């Protein structure tokens, strides 16, 4: 099926994009198009105007600066995969990138577009939650920073205004003694998650957990925070028992639906398992524990 006709705008600067978004009626932003193009084609979306941001070079970046990993709106999934900074320091991002879709999609799709899409099955939302990340939005009223916990409202719905554009997603640079990981269960390579868990652990000098972040994929109406599990971990020393309890709490807090891939109770068990694995990796990467030989 063909997309309904639309007017196509290709601004080459952020300021032009912002003024276009302000002046146009019902504009839709086109980034990597790996979610939007099929939606247009199946006429699930029928915007009159499409603002294609691919020509805005100033949004094409991925760097570590001012205490953040900054992901510009045009950074593609493949850029994360290929980044040395990410491989070194951001375990959950390095884990997630090659698990998103397939190589062709990763060459086009953007991290920010995926977050803006707010698909509860999207992987990056969970990673952002685990890292207490935020997005920077630019609109007619100027710039504002939206913490991830205030971003996702419903499936495919965010707190972004209609004419706002996300310029950047960012997460704090991990200090010493912090590690993170992402685990995803899927039927086959290239699929969306049946369940996924991103975990981040920061340790005090004495080896207790100072801060924990856990984000869950595909098991609620949005990417969701496992707040009870996080609270249970903080102030404790890592152990198999502790992670097991955290896994149980995450599973309890998840809210998956039964579908053709598995019933809800199975997915809850998977949340439990994936949480334990992600926590184990995070702790190991923080340099605090050596994992036991058998999972």
């Amino acid at each position, binding site marked *: 099926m063909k997309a309904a006709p639309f007017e*196509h705008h290709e601004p080459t600067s952020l300021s032009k994009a912002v003024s276009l978004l302000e002046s146009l009626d019902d504009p839709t932003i086109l980034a990597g198009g790996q979610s939007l193009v099929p939606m*247009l084609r199946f006429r699930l979306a029928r915007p009159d105007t499409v603002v294609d941001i691919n020509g805005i070079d100033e949004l094409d970046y991925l760097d570590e600066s001012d205490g953040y990993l900054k992901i510009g709106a045009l950074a593609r999934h493949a850029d994360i995969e290929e980044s040395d900074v990410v491989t070194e320091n951001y375990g959950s991002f*390095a*884990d997630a990138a090659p698990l998103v879709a397939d*190589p062709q999609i990763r060459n086009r799709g953007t991290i920010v577009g995926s977050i803006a899409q707010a698909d509860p099955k999207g992987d990056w939302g969970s990673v952002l939650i685990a890292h207490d990340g935020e997005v920077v939005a630019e609109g007619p009223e100027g710039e504002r920073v939206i913490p991830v916990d205030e971003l996702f409202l419903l499936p495919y719905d965010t707190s972004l205004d209609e004419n706002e554009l996300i310029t950047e997603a960012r997460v704090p640079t991990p200090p010493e003694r912090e590690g993170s990981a992402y685990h995803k269960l899927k*039927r086959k390579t290239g699929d969306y998650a049946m369940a996924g868990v991103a975990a981040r652990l920061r340790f005090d000098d004495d080896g207790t957990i100072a801060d924990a972040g856990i984000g869950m994929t595909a098991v609620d109406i949005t990417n969701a925070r496992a707040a009870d599990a996080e609270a249970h971990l903080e102030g404790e020393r890592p152990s198999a028992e502790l992670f097991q309890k955290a896994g149980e709490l995450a599973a309890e807090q998840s809210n998956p639906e039964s579908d053709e891939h598995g019933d809800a109770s199975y997915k809850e068990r998977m949340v439990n398992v994936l949480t334990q694995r992600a926590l*184990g990796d995070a702790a190991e990467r923080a340099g605090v524990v050596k994992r036991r030989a058998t999972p």
Partner: protein
Amino acid sequence: MTDQREITLTVNGTERTIEVEPRRLLVHAIREDLDMTGTHIGCDTGNCGACTVLRDGEPIKSCMMFATQADGSEIMTVEGMEDLPAAGEDLHPLQEGFHKEHGLQCGYCTPGMLMSGKALLDENPDPDEAEIRDAISGNLCRCTGYQNIVSSIEYAAEKLDEQAAADGGVVAEDGDSDGFDCGVENCCGGPSAETPTPHVEGADPQFDDVTEGSESE
């Protein structure tokens, strides 16, 4: 009411200018405006990879982007394979591999598989089986069971390596000024000077296995 937009694509080395509506998909522009039907449409949802082409050397799904977005870029389709320097007189080693190793049955997925295989070998001339499977993970085949596709790409890697050795490490230019140049350095079957991008594995090998196991269930 929609406007028509003039766009220029360099397709397999030849510059082509066409008029398209903004809603025209790249795959339709290639198949219908340029009459190059080697690039297939299998699913229309971004899943199957039959429509894979190289855009400035990178594999993308041409059903997932508008033609206007490819304005000014170099596109390679399956029709360009036999004009590559590495193809010599006849087939490109990848095509030869699919022939010799029975890498196809119905052939529907083959153009996309060839493009993904080409992109892989340009980056990484000596891939192992896992890397090959990863590179074609966005391409579905309903016939072969993939085994022979992997063998076909392995065949091509070896053949290209032999060619490079015979040429003293450099693939000969075909001297034809119209010869296809995909725009990527050390590309088109030549030995790559770039270090292959390290494959980012999952968290921990011990757990990778477990996850892989559950994936296939």
